[in-house]
């Protein structure tokens, strides 16, 4: 059974039990019986949660890979940003060139 099928089965079991619960409680002989009915319901609910957890656990590797890929992407984007910043430095350097030319020209 796949995790998806497991979850569907767990949900169906809980819903079926919930639908039958009023009748079960109505036929309960005493409080101990009622407690037992509630205990079964609680276990079925826990089983549904466990089935949900199984789906998440199956993605653990994908989550780890995503974290690494996101960190790598951010690093690469930072490098690109540094490249753009270098353009600003280039412009500044060009301005310095011209300033130097102006200074030198004034000496002529």
């Amino acid at each position, binding site marked *: 059974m796949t995790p*998806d099928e497991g*979850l*569907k089965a767990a*949900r169906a079991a809980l*819903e079926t039990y*919930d639908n039958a619960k009023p009748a079960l409680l109505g036929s309960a002989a005493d409080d101990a019986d*009622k*407690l037992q009915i*509630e*205990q079964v*319901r*609680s*276990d079925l*609910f*826990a089983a549904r*949660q*466990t*089935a*949900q*957890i199984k*789906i*998440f*656990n199956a*993605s653990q590797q*994908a*989550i780890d*890979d*995503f*974290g690494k*890929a*996101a960190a790598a*992407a*951010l690093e*690469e*984007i*930072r490098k*690109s*940003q540094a*490249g*753009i910043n270098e*353009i*600003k430095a*280039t*412009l*500044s*350097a*060009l*301005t*310095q*060139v*011209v*300033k*130097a*030319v*102006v*200074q*030198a*020209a004034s*000496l*002529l």
Partner: protein
Amino acid sequence: MRVFLFDYREGVAFARAIRDGGGRNMKNLNQRTALFAKLALVLLAAVALFGCAKSDLKDARALASLGKKSSDNLAEFYGLLAKEARDSAQLAQVPPNVENQAVTDNGEALAKALLVRKSIAKKMSDVYAALGGLVDEKTPAEAEAAAKDLLDQLKKLRDPVLPKIGGVDPIPIVQQGFNALTTLVQQREFRKQAPRVLALLDNLRDLFAREKVAYEDIANSYERELRNAIQGRIDKGQVVLTTPLNDYFSVYSLSLDRVVADPELKAWLRRKVDTQWKQREIAAAELVDAEEKMLGTLAKASRDFVEHKEGKQESQNALRSATADSIALMTNFLMKEEVKR
């Protein structure tokens, strides 16, 4: 850094030569002409490509902004699911339900898993924010300011020191060129990084598609437990009637505030809760679908941009609309949560 034909180190070396050698080097008119000719060529080329790049950059900015917004919305969705997983576990233990440590532990484990997903959606948002930073509008403005500075210097250099290149005055070219050059570099870097971000987004979509059944189930489970808890209280006559009838009575400036004991009123309340529960179940499923649709349109818009496809404007509009729908559904859902509490 080498930008097309022009290597700024050449310019810097030239500047140093001027600084170190004084006026003697300035007599080399050919050297100056060559430098400015190269600069003008680079800037002319940049200006020629500028119009296209500027439009591309506008799309890039919109895509990065929408990508961040969608990712933030997805993070909020995961946060909501984490809360519902934890609340479901608590509601499932409200008497007459029995206490069960496994249910509490599972609720915590589910909330933790969903908060991990919230953090990866936030990472996706960070990546889009960084991508948007590559094409911010500030950088070309700074380049323009630098160009103005340069222009002021060039004006001082006009005849006879600054030669005209082929009879063309380089000053207007420089003025437009610096902005264009920066825009082109921004465009190039954005386009270099966009496929990487798209691959990341595809991974996130795959994860969502694989786990969608669990998201729907958690939302469904929460709604069911909430309904059960409310109806359990109604059955025991512990519910204080305020809102349902007050909606009608308020026009007469009257309100009810009493414990419901009347069997007929209890039955009516149960039916009303059932009706609302069904609506909430549908709304919860719609919210999950809306998140999936939003991710799909984000991927399409990103792919259309990366692949220079026709109609990328339409795909961005679709993304804008899907994100707005998802945010509206989320807001509506959260408002109901507020009212409920």
